[in-house]
Every structure is written in C-alpha cells, then in structure tokens.
C-alpha cells in the first residue's frame, strides 16, 4: 500500500522523457536503489533483495558481484577449453542469470484447499511476478543448501550455470512441481480463492 495518491506517476529511469507534455502530473520520489548506471538491472536488484539477510544489503551486493565473477571465470575457462563450438558459450553473467531465471520459472503452483475436511492440493496458475519470485527463491534455496565450508557465491554460481542450460536441481524442482500439478489436475475445478 503506497502512501502516494493514485494519480502520482512512477519514477522513470529514462533520461529523455516527454515530461513537457505531462508536466502537471506529479511523480513519486525514486527509491534509493534506482540508478541510471549501465550496471543497473531490475532482476539483479530483486535478487540482491532476496539474498539480503538482516538488512545487510551491502554484503548481499558483494555476494552477487562475487557470484558474477565466478560465473564469468568458469565460462571463460570453458571458452578456452572448447575446441570448435565457441559461439554457443555465453560469457555475460547477467545474461546467464536472466536465462537461468527464465528457465526456472514455474507455470503452475499447488495450493492447499480444504473441501469436506480433506485438504486437496489444487493446481493454480501463478502470476508473472510470483513466478519470478519462485524462480529466484528456488535458486537461492538450492545455493544455501551446501556445506558450511563452501562459500555462497560459489554454489550460487553453479546453480545459475546449471539452470541456465536447463539442468540442475532448480529445473528438476520446477519439473517436479509441474508433474505434481499434472497428477492433481482432477482437483483443478476446486479452487475458489
């Protein structure tokens, strides 16, 4: 729930806006994580927020940077080792993160609905926003489930690399969810909330 009245416009990152035509429309103040730097990414910002623990955002930012570095190092190593198919290897770690999240996004979700004293797991479509959230959450959960001696960026980098090429635990988790939804499809008409 925003404190702004509903006629306030969202702040824009674009430098050339046609404000002159709409100069009478008031604009909300920009949040402090918005930036027009070329390193700014909305997905990246979201992921940083999810990594953050106890409000330590600077640490989260550092961890993500380190993750990107690890990804880039491994990809460059692969590029050097690869003989002929050099075009297929993506080095841009932000692109890889984007691919990983796109691959990990679920289409459906199970929600428990009580009918006649029995809880049914009912498949329900997810909104776009929620699917992005779930994909990032699964990536992070997979990364956090590790040995104590392994550093988070290292594991996260591996999970992102795996998910980006359509393998790994996160993709398996998504497919398992889809499978479960498919086996519970008979309950699909039960949902109401």
């Amino acid at each position, binding site marked *: 729930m925003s404190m702004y009245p509903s006629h306030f416009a969202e702040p824009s990152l674009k430098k050339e806006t046609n404000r002159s035509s709409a100069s009478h429309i008031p604009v909300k103040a920009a949040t402090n994580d918005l930036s027009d730097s070329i390193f700014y990414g909305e997905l990246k910002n979201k992921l940083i927020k999810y990594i953050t623990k106890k409000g330590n955002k600077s640490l989260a930012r550092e961890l993500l940077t380190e993750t990107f570095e690890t990804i880039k190092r491994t990809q460059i190593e692969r590029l050097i080792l690869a003989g002929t198919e050099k075009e297929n290897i993506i080095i841009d770690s932000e692109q890889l993160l984007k691919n990983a999240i796109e691959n990990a996004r679920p*289409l459906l979700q199970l929600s428990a609905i009580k009918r006649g004293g029995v809880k049914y797991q009912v498949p329900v*479509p997810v*909104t*776009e926003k929620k699917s992005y959230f779930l994909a990032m959450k699964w990536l992070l959960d997979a990364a956090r489930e590790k040995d104590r001696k392994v550093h988070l960026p290292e594991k996260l980098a591996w999970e992102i690399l795996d998910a980006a090429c359509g393998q790994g635990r996160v993709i398996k988790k998504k497919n398992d969810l*889809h499978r479960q*939804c*498919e086996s519970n499809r008979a309950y*699909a008409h039960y949902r*109401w*909330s």
Partner: protein
Amino acid sequence: MRIPGALYAARGRKPQNEKDVPFQEILPLRLKNTVSGKADSGSDVACLQEMGVLFACLKDNEFVEKYCHKEISQFQKCYKFYMDRKFEAKQTVNQGIVQPGNNLNYKQLNKYMRRFPNPQ
C-alpha cells in the same frame, strides 16, 4: 388399561393457549438496509480448458517446456486476461457510481438502500 392413541386422533389435539407462549422477536422482522458483497466475488475457476490442454502437451513431451510454446503462451494469456478483467471489475465496484438499471453490484445497491431505508 392403555387406550390406543388412535381413539383421540379424531378429535385432534387441543390448541395451546396463545398467552402461554408470548411472541418473541428474536431477529427484527424487517429486511436489513444492506446486502453483503459475498456473491459478487464470483468463482475463481478460470482457464480450466487451457490448463487441460497444457497438461496434455506437457505429459506427451515429458515436461519439456520448449515443445509446448503455443500451449504455454495461450494459458498465460488466458490467465492474464482473466486477472485483468477481475481487476477492472473491482475498480468499477470501488468507483461506486450509481446508475439506473437493474444490474447493480452490491456497492451500488447499498448506496441505493441507504438513500431509501426501511421504516423503523
């Protein structure tokens, strides 16, 4: 000796004296001036057919999504359309503009009835 009850049945049972059971108005005997908005929320079941088609495709292709692009996009489009419609309906309800007609939502009805309440 017991007399079978059928002998009394012809005369019937004596009615109770009305003074013995005075009428109590437990709930007020008039309609409320409001209606609840429960029925307007509607059912949340949408895109069942699209979901069925998607499931069939996914099952045929062993849950590999790249072979079901058409079905997936159709399903998501359907759900988005449904959500948009729902959002718009909520907006119009919240605006609460009362217009004449017989197809009113609960907010409009409540406004009407507040203007013309039941006599107390």
